[in-house]
């Protein structure tokens, strides 16, 4: 697949509200080159000094009808991810991605240990037994992340002021193909809107 580089079209509209809150609400619109909204893009803002991961973060990726649910996932580095296996037939989850290489059998009728994703990066999950099962898990060094809905919109509430790198990923980008742009949030900025264009198939 030809590499798709994100082209940057920045539209920043700041509403200077007489707000006592110093944090900003950020809305990011992710659009294709043809200006169509892009669903299931992951948008995340990495602070210039990334915070230490909060302890005890948990997440679940289920196995339903021989599929991973959700298919597109994002968690902060250090999150413990469970695979509940609602299917209740046996699965064998694996990843060869450098951010986490592992295999774990999910037996029918037995709980499995959570897997801690301790390194940032893109993890592609599969099942050894059911080879059409695939799920994407983006592990990011920030608590500020969101997935776009069918309107292509990702919302960040109360983003603290400071400098960030705003990154955008969409299936099937590699880590290197992710969009990246500088984002500065002023104290008292109120509401910010960004539009990011990515090339989509």
């Amino acid at each position, binding site marked *: 697949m030809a590499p798709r580089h994100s082209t940057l079209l920045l539209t920043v509209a700041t509403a200077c509200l007489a707000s006592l809150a110093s944090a900003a609400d950020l809305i990011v619109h992710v659009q294709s080159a043809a200006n169509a909204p892009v669903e299931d893009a992951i948008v995340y803002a990495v602070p210039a000094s990334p915070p230490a991961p909060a302890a005890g973060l948990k997440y679940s990726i289920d196995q339903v009808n021989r599929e991973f649910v959700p298919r597109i996932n994002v968690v902060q580095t250090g999150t413990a991810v469970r695979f509940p296996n609602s299917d*209740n*037939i*046996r699965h064998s989850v694996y990843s060869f991605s450098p951010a986490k290489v592992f295999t774990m*059998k999910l037996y029918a*009728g037995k*709980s499995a240990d959570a897997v801690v994703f301790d390194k940032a990066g893109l993890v592609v999950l599969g099942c050894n037994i059911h*080879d059409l*099962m695939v799920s994407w898990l983006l592990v990011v060094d920030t608590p500020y992340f969101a997935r776009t809905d069918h309107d292509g919109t990702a919302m960040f509430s109360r983003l603290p002021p400071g400098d960030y790198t705003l990154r955008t990923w969409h299936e099937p980008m590699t880590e290197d193909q992710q969009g990246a742009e500088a984002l500065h949030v002023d104290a008292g900025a109120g509401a910010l809107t960004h539009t990011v264009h990515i090339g989509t198939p």
Partner: protein
Amino acid sequence: MKAASKHAALVAAAAGALCGLHGRAWATSPSLYARLGGEPVVTAVVSETIDATVADPRLNQSYRNTDIPRIKRLVVEQICDLAGGGCHYGGDSMREVHANHHITQREFFGLVENLRRALRRHHVNLRARNELLALLAPMAPDVINVVTPPPPKDPAS
């Protein structure tokens, strides 16, 4: 495999002649795996059996979205192990493999019938066919309608 069984037969005959003993006390009987035709035959038989089963809508529900080459590899390994071919089956138990797949009697015996056909097609003799089926028959309770209740929900989740 065929060369090994011929060699074993020669050794048995020679030993019997030298010692005046009947072959049976000294013979190394060829393994069932060898008498099935060894790896090439078993691989072909397993492949055709599973292909026929996957192609049959009455039998194939449990194979949906499943890696078929992997299953074939593991079934060959299992037969090689059970039939004295010297392999070690590294897969999961039949119970674990089939838990909650809702395999019916009809599906199980449908596969067995496909296996019989494939064995005959490859000219495996009646005795070897029956021995193989006798090895597989005890698996039925671990394949058919194996039910494992789901684990209790983690209250912390």
